[in-house]
């Protein structure tokens, strides 16, 4: 498509053509039937779009918009604090459990070995799942689209 025609047409729609460009655009339309048809088609769709607008939500939506963001940020912070607290608590509980387990003389060595393998296997599984999640997130093709 004629790039100059496109630029002149867009300027025409925005009423930005100067006298010289107006004459040039008029000349293009008069001498090229295909471009004249393109112009008519574009004018028609512009006219349809000109009559339309996106639906405006109610006033209450706008009044509560900032508070919605504020609440979500606040809740996000609450979750971070809860997560840190849970991490510390479960870390400490795990440490105490391991200590008690090592010092426990009642459990037979074979049972201790079995439990150790069970926990070790579970840890490998969790590590593998987390690594896969991070790997997938890094390769998300939409993540950095035209940033």
């Amino acid at each position: 498509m004629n790039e100059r025609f496109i630029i002149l047409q867009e300027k025409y729609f925005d009423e930005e053509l100067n006298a010289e460009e107006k004459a040039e655009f008029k000349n293009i339309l008069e001498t090229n039937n295909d471009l004249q048809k393109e112009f008519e088609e574009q004018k028609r769709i512009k006219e349809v779009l000109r009559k339309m607008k996106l639906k405006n939500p109610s006033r209450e939506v706008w009044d509560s918009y900032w508070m919605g963001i504020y609440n979500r940020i606040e809740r996000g912070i609450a979750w971070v604090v809860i997560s840190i607290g849970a991490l510390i608590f479960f870390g400490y509980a795990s440490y105490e459990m391991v200590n008690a387990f090592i010092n426990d003389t009642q459990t037979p060595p074979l049972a201790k070995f079995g439990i150790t393998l069970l926990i070790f296997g579970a840890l490998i599984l969790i590590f593998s799942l987390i690594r896969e999640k991070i790997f997938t997130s890094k390769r998300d093709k939409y993540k950095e689209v035209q940033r």
Partner: protein
Amino acid sequence: MRKKIIEDPGLSVSLKEEFEMLVKQNMRRAYFSALGLLGSHDAAMDVTQEAFIRAYRNFKNFNGEKKFFTWYYSILKNLCLNFIRDRKRKNETEYIEFKENEHSQNRSSEAIENKELIEKLQEAIDELDFDDREVIILKEFEDHTYKEIAEILNVPVGSVMSRLFYARKKLAVKLKRKV
């Protein structure tokens, strides 16, 4: 008065107030851009608010070289693309309407025709590629200038004009098939 301070991510009170002001200044056009791209009020609300939260977390990186909306739009666009990628089914609510002065409620036949036109136009817009829909929304519905769109999309003004031309052409073809 509700407390102004949000404890994280360590922004000063003045920066937080500045951010609140920027949200209030830009929420409408953010919402309408997302509404045009996603075609759903709930999704547009959710995605624009999430984008503002991400902008808030990275607000210290906003250096003011670009306009806030231009910077914010890149976050919003990524979230919209993610939303479209993950969406299970298409939205079926109407998000386009006639401008008040273009619409007559008097004749019922005209009202039905108008409703049909809106449905067809909406379907045609939904069928466009994301990039085409984006320029149509920014220019024809949001009324941004070519220069503003060029800044938002980080492309030359000539490319914006060209993209608009071809997007309208595709829209016209799709609409013609439906009407």
